[in-house]
């Protein structure tokens, strides 16, 4: 075994692992300081840089042949996910001064990195579970409200069901092909056999559950609402990214044909429509974000209708734009002692007159999530729908676009509350702390870069 290659090509993973160990040690030694945040920032940022360097160096290594490989595109996706995690860490201080939060977060990130390099089903499964398990705890960590426990349990049960479905599908594939390589999945996509079809459907459904696609979405609103703001942001951006990147890895560049394409289009289409409709009547900001994320999961799964080579690019670009905007909105959310009050839409009423900066940031995020140009959300959506249409699924593309129209109302309603209503006199706003503000500034700068130079960003992917 080439130890040098193992040391360098897995550097992002190693750094995360080292971070986990150090954070646990600090936790045991109970150093009373901000060390936990600083250390996790350091390790995650270092891992992000390492992944980016691997990507730009063009590292293309089969480290553990058949199980774990490092490819430039996957490394870049790792770098993007880890960079989003850095922003997330910056906005976490308000809710998590110290404690278990940080090692759990890093473990989950390790899982995302692992699944991005997975070549075999056991590795992929390991990555997915490593990504998901800490989150069940993270949801519970915000145990300030009884809803958190309910949310965590619901998430746990449905997550378990998803894993079971996935393993069932994999075992059928193994029975059919005798191989554990993930390429058997893309091979089974076009295969006619009943066994292969059932296996593919089971695996796709397991990802529908994880990605909160209607009708498997019911855990998402509760989990998003029950968790604390950074954990909601984590689920909405990085977990969603992990799930979709795993799907992208499975599908590879094989074209999806009917009738599988219909399965891949119809449920996401329903998600787009239902997510956008249900979001209209939410009174809780995080619940609204949850329904919005259900709709966005729909757009993301649409990407797999598109032709092979553009698929990974479209998914990563979308996840980048979508992640930045979700982080921007949640990082700018005005603070409040009572988490339940903070979450209420009323808390945003007249925000522009209390905290213009936060209001502008949330407004930008809302316009972008609604897909209104020239914000990055539009370009991401354009990329996906252009690919779908280029692949010949014109009807689905048009229906999806019309579904996205339904979303405009509730995003703009947030803007209306912030800008067009007088502030309610009773609300006391605490200006968000400097770290959270710097997180939102980083999001803004990154989003501006993506919006002004989309060609450059797409060229990188």
């Amino acid at each position: 075994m080439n130890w040098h290659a193992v040391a360098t090509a897995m550097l992002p993973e190693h750094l995360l692992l080292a971070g986990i160990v150090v954070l646990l040690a600090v936790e045991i030694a109970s150093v009373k300081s901000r060390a936990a945040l600083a250390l996790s920032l350091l390790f995650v940022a270092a891992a992000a840089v390492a992944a980016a360097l691997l990507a730009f160096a063009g590292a293309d290594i089969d480290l553990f042949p058949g199980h774990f490989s490092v490819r430039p595109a996957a490394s870049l996706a790792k770098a993007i996910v880890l960079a989003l995690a850095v922003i997330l860490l910056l906005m976490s201080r308000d809710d998590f001064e110290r404690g278990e939060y940080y090692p759990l977060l890093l473990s989950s990130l390790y899982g995302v990195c692992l699944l991005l390099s997975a070549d075999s089903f056991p590795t992929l499964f390991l990555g997915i579970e490593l990504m998901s398990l800490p989150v069940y705890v993270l949801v519970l960590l915000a145990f300030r409200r009884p809803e958190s426990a309910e949310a965590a349990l619901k998430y746990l049960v449905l997550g378990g069901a998803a894993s079971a479905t996935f393993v069932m599908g994999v075992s059928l594939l193994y029975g059919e092909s005798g191989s554990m390589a993930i390429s058997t999945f893309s091979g089974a996509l076009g295969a006619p056999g009943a066994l292969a079809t059932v296996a593919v459907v089971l695996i796709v459904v397991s990802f529908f559950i994880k990605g909160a696609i209607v009708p498997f979405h019911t855990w998402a609103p509760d989990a998003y609402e029950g968790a604390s703001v950074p954990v909601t942001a984590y689920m909405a951006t990085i977990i969603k990214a992990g799930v979709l990147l795993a799907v992208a890895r499975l599908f590879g560049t094989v074209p999806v044909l009917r009738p599988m394409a219909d399965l891949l289009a119809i449920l996401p289409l329903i998600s787009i429509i239902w997510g956008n409709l249900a979001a209209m009547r939410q009174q809780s900001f995080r619940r609204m974000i949850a329904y919005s994320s259900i709709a966005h999961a729909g757009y993301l799964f649409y990407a797999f209708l598109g032709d092979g080579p553009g698929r990974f690019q479209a998914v990563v670009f979308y996840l980048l734009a979508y992640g930045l905007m979700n982080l921007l909105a949640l990082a700018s959310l005005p603070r409040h002692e009572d988490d339940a009050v903070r979450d209420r839409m009323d808390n945003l009423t007249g925000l522009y007159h209390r905290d213009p900066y936060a209001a502008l940031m949330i407004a930008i995020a809302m316009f972008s999530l609604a897909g209104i140009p020239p914000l990055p959300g539009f370009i991401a959506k354009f990329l996906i729908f252009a690919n779908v249409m280029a692949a010949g699924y014109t009807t689905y593309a048009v229906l999806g676009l019309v579904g996205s129209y339904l979303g405009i109302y509730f995003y703009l309603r947030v803007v209306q509350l912030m800008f067009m209503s007088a502030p309610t006199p009773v609300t006391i706003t605490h200006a968000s702390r400097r770290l959270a503000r710097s997180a939102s500034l980083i999001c803004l700068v990154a989003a501006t870069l993506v919006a002004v130079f989309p060609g450059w960003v797409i060229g990188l992917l």
Partner: protein
Amino acid sequence: MADAALLNIVLLLPLAGIALLLAVRAPHEDSMRWLSLAVMLAQFVMAAVLYVHFDAAATGLQFETRLAWIPAWGVHYQIGLDGYNVLLVLLTTFLGPLVVAGSFSAIQKDVKLFHAMVFLIQFAMLGAFLAQDLFLFYLFWEAMMIPMFLIIGIWGGERRIYATFKFVLYTAFGSILMLAAVIYLVYALQATSGATSFAMADLYKSRLPLPVQTLLLAAFALSFAIKVPMFPLHTWLPDAHVEAPTAGSVILAGVLLKMGTYGFMKLGFPLFPDATRLLTPILMMLAVISIIYGACLALVQDDIKKIIAYSSISHLGYVMLGLLSLDLLGIQGAVIQMVSHGLTAAGLFLMVGMIYERCHTRELAAYGGLAKILPVYSVFFMILTLAAVGLPTTSGFTGEFLVLLGAFNAAWPQFQSGTSLPLVLAVAAVGGVVLGALYMLRFAQSFLFGVVKAPHLPMDLNLREKTILAAIVIGIFALGLFPDEPMRKTELAAKAYQQLVVTQRAPGSMP
């Protein structure tokens, strides 16, 4: 080369204006107003220089900038002036300073945000006019929605939330189908030519079968017809106009509505010529219905802002009629009518805003005999009214006359060959002129003459207001008395448009 750089500066100056505004501290509201005015004036001067430099004898784009923007999709940052947009760019930059100056006293709340939004919409409108790449055009086209949503929603009247959501939901619905059509068009072109390109010049060469053309035109037309607005899609306009602050109404009537007719002229019709000729009777009928119906509705309104709002529907119907006539005079008349309506409607909305600031009501019945107490106001109002009616020597006459002439020119040969619909429609459009005179003069009569009646005893216009209105009146007479120069500058574009729409492009026919 220098002029191309200047054109980019004209486009990007509003963004610089926003950056400057951010530097002004909150309490200095007057400095924000003057700063915005200065930036807008600078922009107008630069645009005027470009207008003078614009060569009427040259075909195609002038002062062009073309930079690769998203190479993977063949998207370019491509802007330039041509006969299609040169007058509209000048109109937009001309109205910019007037919008800012007209809001000096009307906007007291969130002054900084207001001027930032005016800059933003100015940027988006200019971008949409200048863009020569369909992707870029769509970007700017949609981006206009954000500042307008905020302008109506924050500084509007009582029912502003309803009005602004109605505006956004109407326009966004049109745009989303247009987006689908844009993507389809580009990939259909890619399938035949092999290259992905959003450049309008390339898209004009697309050769699509008639059914596809018809569907795509329907998608584009829906979006443009909502913006114009044309008859069954006009219901957002009165609400938006009535609730919008004066500045919002001026931008809306002055420039934003022309976006729709410009879209038809630059994209809708030339991209899908065969479908256009197929649908011409229906579109023409809708245009004439808009003329008559808008005029009839204007006749019965008792809110003065609504009268002008409905008159806009009527006046833009002429633009559509002229574009659809495919007669050179008619097309040129349509272009002049766009500018003329931009000037008169903007002026009238500004004047309504001025009286509203003084008396706080828009009820027509609350006013009477203003000529006796507000002589200067009344003179300006009368001039604008007559321009809207189309009195010779004003710009309204040039536009409407040419459009009708074009409509008859085009209808007569068709009548002789047995098709009478165009002639009937042209005659009906002339009826619209009479109705137009009727509602505007009724408005002016009960507003300016008769028994003196006003909620308060208002002061006459101050110097700022006089300057604004004088600028508009000069523009109206300039366009009415010397239409020759602007018509020369747009003639080649009108011919190009005519050529594009007349030529058959569906495959299976002779090239």
